[in-house]
């Protein structure tokens, strides 16, 4: 816990006074699990502007995405979605960081960052399109400045680093932010991304949500040291933050974004949180996970925590709670309706967008398949699940 990373990573030495590195590796925390606001000599500065009203809105966001998550899980159970990766427990990490971003920053995430997508303004129906099996992607990345979710573990960290190289070339002050899990830190891609990011000192933030599990594998299998401490080996300064404390996450993200905007290069953030649900709706965590562990983490629940903070401040009125609940219900309802009324794709859609311009070779395959469907008279009914047995 004593690794002092001040001075690691080239240009950061001279700016160490302004940018806290989390000296010592204790978790940065601004709000305790019981909702007490504790002051922090370095990080308070980064959330000094957060008003009571904004605190309430963070509470609302977190409640809404939990509701989205629960609704999507229910939709999967009802057969409306093929699969869903729950983010239950990770609301503070996603909202705290997502709300810290500027609209011209660009996000490259994994499949679990639906809360971040919500912050980016992704349409609710678009959020479930892929999981319903109706499309390969739910949204146009350029309309929300967020790439579509990545399933190949860690691949997106390289894309973020490349995007950041482009930002640097362009002389812009936006930032690329990439989200990944604790398991991902073992992949070659993530390590190579850190090499490039440090070599070129590009404006990228590596946001690692340490939710303690990579499917059945505990984080200790991926790393012998704290994940944040890995970054030092690449010459990248890092922060280790309580991922269930929305204010602390926001502060840490702002530190990293500010450093990147000022030309200070990459930052690695380890947000320590917990995946309270299964890995996906196809997973059974009881096979590998101790129920007591879940209980311990439930006591640190990120939403209860901000609610407790609001309560201490006298802000958690019944009116606010009702208002937040209504909003969450409305959002969930909108997503459900969008999901269940989504039209099925047309069979020949499979041939669309393979290339940017048509080519006769694929056109021929499409034409042949159209004739095949037509040979049944009723194109839609021609190919049943049966037919694909």
């Amino acid at each position, binding site marked *: 816990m004593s690794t002092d990373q001040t001075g690691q990573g080239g240009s950061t030495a001279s700016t160490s006074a302004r940018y806290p590195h989390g000296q010592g590796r204790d978790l940065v925390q601004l709000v305790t699990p019981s909702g007490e606001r504790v002051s922090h000599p370095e990080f308070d500065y980064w959330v000094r502007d957060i008003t009571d009203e904004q605190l309430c809105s963070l509470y609302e966001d977190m409640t809404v995405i939990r509701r989205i998550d629960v609704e999507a899980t229910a939709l999967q159970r009802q057969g409306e979605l093929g699969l869903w990766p729950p983010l239950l427990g990770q609301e503070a990490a996603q909202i705290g960081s997502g709300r810290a971003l500027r609209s011209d920053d660009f996000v490259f995430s994994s499949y679990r960052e639906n809360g971040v997508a919500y912050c980016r303004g992704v349409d609710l129906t678009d959020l479930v399109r892929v999981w319903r099996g109706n499309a390969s992607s739910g949204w146009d990345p350029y309309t929300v400045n967020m790439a579509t979710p990545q399933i190949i573990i860690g691949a997106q960290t390289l894309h973020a680093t490349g995007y950041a190289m482009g930002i640097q070339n362009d002389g812009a002050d936006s930032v690329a932010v990439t989200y990944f899990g604790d398991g991902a830190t073992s992949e070659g891609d993530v390590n190579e991304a850190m090499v490039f990011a440090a070599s070129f000192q590009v404006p990228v933030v590596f946001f690692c949500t340490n939710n303690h599990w990579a499917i059945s594998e505990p984080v200790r299998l991926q790393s012998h040291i704290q994940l944040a401490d890995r970054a030092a080996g690449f010459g990248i300064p890092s922060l280790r933050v309580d991922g269930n404390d929305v204010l602390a996450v926001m502060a840490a993200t702002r530190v990293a974004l500010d450093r990147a905007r000022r030309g200070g290069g990459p930052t690695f953030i380890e947000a320590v949180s917990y995946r309270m649900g299964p890995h996906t709706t196809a997973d059974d965590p009881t096979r590998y996970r101790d129920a007591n562990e879940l209980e311990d983490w439930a006591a640190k629940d990120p939403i209860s925590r901000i609610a407790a903070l609001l309560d201490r401040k006298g802000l958690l009125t019944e009116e606010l709670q009702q208002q937040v609940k209504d909003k969450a219900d409305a959002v969930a309802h909108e997503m459900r309706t969008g999901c269940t009324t989504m039209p099925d794709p047309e069979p020949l*859609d499979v041939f669309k967008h393979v290339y940017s311009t048509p080519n006769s070779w694929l056109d021929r395959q499409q034409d042949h398949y159209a004739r095949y469907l037509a040979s049944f008279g009723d194109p839609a009914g021609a190919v049943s699940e049966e037919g694909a047995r």
Partner: protein
Amino acid sequence: MTQMTFARAINAGLRKSLENDPKVVLLGEDIGTLGGVFRVTDGLQKDFGTHRVVDTPLAESAIVGTAVGLAYRGYRPVVEIQFDGFVYPAFDQIVSQVAKIHYRTRGAVKMPITIRIPFGGGIGSPEHHSESPEAYFTHTSGLRVVTVADPQDAYTVIQQAISCDDPVLYFEPKRRYHDKGEVDEALDPAAAEPMGRARVLATGTDVTLVAYGPLVKTALDAASAAADEGISIEVIDLRSLAPVDYDTVVASVRRTGHLVITHEAGQSGGLGAEVAASITERCFYYLEAPPVRVTGFDIPYPYSKLEMHHLPGLDRILDGVDRALGRPNSLSGLEG
């Protein structure tokens, strides 16, 4: 004889290999405590320990690359790649190292590595979970590439693969994992049909239908459906994709005069092209019509709502059979 699922049969085969040879070690993501996402390695870590059944960090290149080192050291690693689409981070280790070390060292170093890959579609999964990457590997010399089509074969071939001194890619048709079949656990794999040989699963006189892995069952169903229409189909389960047992296919085509090949992978550069070309070379004067391929399209694997359009089903295979036989079909009247 015991009734068991496909997944269970592989599990039983792995168990036998672990019992029989202390040098066999299993490596992969989630294969220990969880027993694999498909439960294929269920219970093995409990019984053989964490040194023989190893939950690895999440890094495919490392999983295969360390298997190479273990093989240098005299072990027989059996690697699980969780899903087909996740083999690519390990591609370099497989094609540049695993495949070539025996050749590079003039036979001094053996690479008895088995790489298990659940492959193919039909289970409604998201992107990267339904691919058929076999052609990337059949194009690489030095690798043996096999696949299985029923529990008995799965049980036998996994043991043959593990005891083979060459690297073997063992493709498991994941949509068949829950299919049940009789398995004779007493069957000695050394005495069973070698994994390099194709099998004739149904005899017929009109057309030779070649399939492998997940489509073998579909091909057999197509053959029975065709029989009702008076068409006699000979179904060959290719089993070994590299090297291909052409002798078995040649013998069949010389009798039927017609060849249809089916696979889930896209058509271009696929195994069907290779079989069609090789059979055309060897059977040109026996063929009464050009070989026909019934395959996936040349598109990225589509989202699940449309995957049944991409995957060759029974009707599409029968349409291909009609084309090979010059019977009325969806392309009748079209020129080449």
